């Protein structure tokens, strides 16, 4: 799409709309920067509007250190990515849609991290799910894009339901829906009988969103999205939502052995599995996706701790990862954009042609590998300190961190060396450097990776500590420093670099072994997902074919039969009580109308031609309308008459085009009897229901109210109309919406039959 368009003379270098729209995240970033100094001092900004008070749902927003950290990451990457996309996506036919989704997603993410109300948080959570579905499937003409988008939607959407369940259980357990009020509750929820259920539900919500094993598989597949989207969704925002959730819930649910054990095991497994798999693919973007899995695993692992140290490790690594991963994704996108491939086997020697991108990648990968002087090094040091200080399974945590980090180092080397320094298996065509819009993001984020590595004290004071303190009560001072002296973490860091270079040396061998090993796995969650989906679709198809067989007669039978059985079941025991034969009274004309309606019904039932049947139906309708008239309801009579007339016209338009009714006569006799029994049953049921209703004294409270107020309050004497357009006009508004929608649906159906 991007490279093989020789026919188009000149694809514009960048689209102006994209550049302009990147002002939005920039402005938001600026606003957050204004609030930043106050937040560092410990101020928490709270804003609140009422939304649905009866559901405990308020538009409550909260800006504290944690929200600020996330907000800064989201808006900063949002800015660079929309700037980047204005070049990357230039010439695409749906640019407006693209930027709308992208910025909508950003707003939803900000909503998650700034919500003070759990239900509000859930609303934004679902918004990110839906928008990520739209973004991942952005190239919807590709089948894989559609399938992967659906996979992401099903997995994260399903997890979202668990999150909602968890929130509701929390409410049942007596916890407040407002995050700011949690501090007061103490250990109440952790000792509650519902605690395990709440924990598991919230955990599944976080695990699906943040792609933890066994729900990890949607993340690498979601790489089918255009690169700016992958960078935004998977580097900085969407997948971090689960991490954010765990951080937010940490003071409320964390600290128990259930929490700590589960998180460490799940996080460690995810980190190892992601890191090992990152060696497998040749596609640069897929490699990055697996390293994201590793990062998410590590974050979860550290959130399993309860010491300030391990939480600081999580918050630090969150920043480290956001910086280097967004830069790398964007740089890989630039390579793809300029060369037309992101396959490692076809890339090489890009250092000469793309020197600035190469520099940015170098800075980002160095940070990723954790070289001294880079922010990643600081992150790794504190990671080892945190892992050693875990309450549960510290040895497992340390080994998992060590192995995952070593693999990361090797992968960082692969990403840096092969495309830029390697010779490439194929001679590459001349390549131009990416435009400035695409270089700015990776360059600044790479640079920040170095800057933060040089002044870790500043970062820890202004970003990390405010964030950690807002979800951890103990104000223990943990400063990030450049050099800790000779200690175990430093030894582990050196070990990591050594191991990483060994793995890099034997990467081809390892890749081969790993790919064959994964192929041999006989049960995998992606496989389970696929077979589950297939089974569901197959059974749904079979069921639909059975129920929706195209026979209108059958549909009506099902509907009426269900209705009769469902109503008759509870109603039958009451029938004997109301079976008092009513005395025949009323004006003579009513008797005449009754006979007329009965006769018309007979005409409908025994008619030999359609015209005759339609005429009979009209007779029934007119008879009913006249009955209303006789009993003093002229308004209803008028409406009924008009409806009957119009219905009749429509029916004749349709029915008179059908084949003659002779065909219907050939039905088996048993079916006619069956239908007759059902109609009689339905009729009898309705009759007894009406008789039952007559036994209950009429409640005239509402009628009296309307009679008294119709003229005074609404200046109308026609009560029916006043109710329709004034007293209950919201109902009417809903009804006319339904009328119009139904008409349009009908038109669509008619048009489709015409085409088919």
């Amino acid at each position, binding site marked *: 799409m991007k490279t093989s368009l020789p026919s188009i003379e000149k694809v514009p270098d960048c689209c102006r709309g994209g550049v302009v729209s990147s002002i939005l995240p920039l402005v938001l970033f600026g606003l957050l920067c204004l609030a930043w100094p106050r937040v560092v001092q410990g101020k928490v900004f709270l804003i609140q509007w009422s939304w649905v008070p009866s559901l405990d749902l308020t538009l409550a927003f909260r800006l504290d250190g944690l929200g600020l950290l996330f907000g800064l990451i989201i808006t900063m990457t949002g800015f660079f990515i929309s700037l980047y996309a204005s070049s990357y996506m230039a010439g695409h036919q749906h640019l407006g849609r693209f930027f709308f989704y992208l910025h909508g997603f950003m707003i939803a993410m900000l909503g998650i991290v700034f919500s003070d109300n759990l239900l509000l948080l859930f609303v934004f959570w679902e918004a990110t799910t839906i928008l990520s579905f739209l973004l991942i499937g952005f190239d919807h003409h590709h089948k894989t894009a559609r399938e992967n988008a659906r996979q992401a939607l099903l997995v994260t959407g399903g997890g979202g339901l668990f999150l909602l369940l968890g929130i509701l259980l929390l409410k049942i357990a007596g916890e407040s829906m407002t995050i700011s009020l949690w501090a007061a509750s103490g250990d109440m929820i952790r000792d509650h009988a519902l605690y395990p259920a709440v924990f598991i539900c919230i955990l599944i919500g976080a695990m699906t969103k943040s792609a933890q094993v066994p729900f990890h598989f949607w993340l690498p597949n979601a790489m089918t999205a255009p690169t700016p989207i992958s960078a935004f969704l998977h580097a900085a925002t969407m997948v971090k939502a689960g991490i954010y959730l765990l951080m937010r819930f940490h003071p409320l649910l964390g600290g128990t052995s259930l929490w700590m054990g589960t998180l460490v095991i799940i996080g460690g497994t995810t980190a190892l599995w992601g890191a090992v798999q990152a060696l497998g693919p040749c596609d640069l973007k897929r490699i990055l996706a697996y390293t994201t899995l590793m990062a998410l695993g590590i974050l979860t692992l550290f959130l399993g701790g309860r010491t300030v140290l391990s939480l600081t490790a999580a918050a630090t690594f969150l920043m480290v990862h956001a910086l280097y991963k967004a830069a790398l994704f964007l740089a890989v996108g630039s390579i793809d954009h300029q060369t037309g491939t992101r396959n490692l086997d076809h890339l090489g020697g890009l250092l000469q042609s793309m020197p600035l991108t190469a520099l940015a990648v170098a800075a980002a990968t160095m940070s990723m590998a954790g070289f001294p002087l880079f922010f990643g090094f600081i992150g790794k040091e504190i990671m080892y300190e945190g892992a050693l200080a875990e309450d549960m399974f510290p040895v497992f945590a340390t080994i998992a961190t060590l192995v995952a980090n070593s693999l990361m180092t090797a992968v960082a080397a692969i990403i840096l060396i092969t495309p830029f320094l390697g010779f490439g298996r194929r001679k590459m065509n001349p390549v131009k450097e990416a435009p400035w819009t695409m270089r700015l993001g990776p360059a600044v984020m790479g640079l920040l990776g170095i800057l933060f590595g040089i002044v870790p004290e500043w970062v820890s004071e202004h970003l990390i500590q405010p964030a950690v303190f807002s979800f951890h009560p103990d104000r223990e001072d943990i400063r990030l420093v450049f050099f800790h002296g000779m200690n175990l973490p430093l030894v582990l860091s050196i070990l990591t670099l050594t191991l990483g270079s060994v793995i890099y040396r034997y990467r081809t061998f390892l890749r081969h072994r790993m790919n064959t090993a994964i192929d041999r796995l006989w049960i995998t969650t992606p496989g389970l997902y696929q077979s589950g989906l297939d089974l569901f679709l197959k059974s749904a198809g079979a069921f639909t074919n059975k129920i929706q067989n195209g026979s209108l007669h059958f549909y009506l039978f099902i509907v009426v039969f269900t209705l009769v059985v469902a109503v008759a079941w509870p109603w039958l025991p009451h029938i004997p009580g109301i079976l008092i034969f009513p005395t025949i009274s009323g004006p003579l004309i009513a008797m005449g109308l009754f006979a007329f309606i009965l006769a018309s019904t007979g005409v409908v039932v025994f008619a030999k031609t359609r015209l005759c049947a339609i005429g009979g139906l009209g007779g029934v309708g007119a008879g009913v309308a006249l009955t209303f008239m006789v009993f003093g309801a002229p308004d209803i009579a008028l409406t009924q008459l008009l409806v009957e007339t*119009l219905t009749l016209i429509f029916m004749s338009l349709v029915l008179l085009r059908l084949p003659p009714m002779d065909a219907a006569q050939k039905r088996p006799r048993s079916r006619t009897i069956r239908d007759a029994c059902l109609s009689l049953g339905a009729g009898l049921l309705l009759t007894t229901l009406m008789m039952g209703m007559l036994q209950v004294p009429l409640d005239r409270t509402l009628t009296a109210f309307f009679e008294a107020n119709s003229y005074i*309050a609404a200046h109308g004497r026609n009560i029916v109309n*006043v109710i*329709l357009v004034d007293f209950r006009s919201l109902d009417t508004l809903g009804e006319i919406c339904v009328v*119009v929608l139904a*008409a*349009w649906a*009908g038109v669509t159906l008619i048009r489709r*039959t015409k085409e088919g």
Partner: protein
Amino acid sequence: MQSTILKTATHLMVGLMLVFAVYVLLRGHHEPGGGFCAALLAGTAFALFAITEGPDRVRRAIRVRPGTIAATGLALAALAGLPALVMNKPFLTGIWWHPGPFFVGTPLIFDLGVFLAVLGAILSLLLALEEN
């Protein structure tokens, strides 16, 4: 449908029915009638017209697409609720104006919206069926 009697009668009737529909719409607040009834009446008139003269004549007569009529109706009905919001009352509360011997209020606009929405719905279906 080729019938001279129907054709002649329709030409006389359609105009009368449409005028009567407007009358029913306006009287609805005090006497039987209202937007819904008026829409049914007007719809019947157009149906008659479509049967005798064909759907193309109806399309030309109404000038705009039936979907537009329906959408306008929905928008009008919704807009009729806004003045109340401005005056800090619940959405769709009737706001009345008393310019002389009679009252004019937002429910009238709402009723007009009902009329147009239902008429648009009927016309969409009618034309789709007739053109099929």
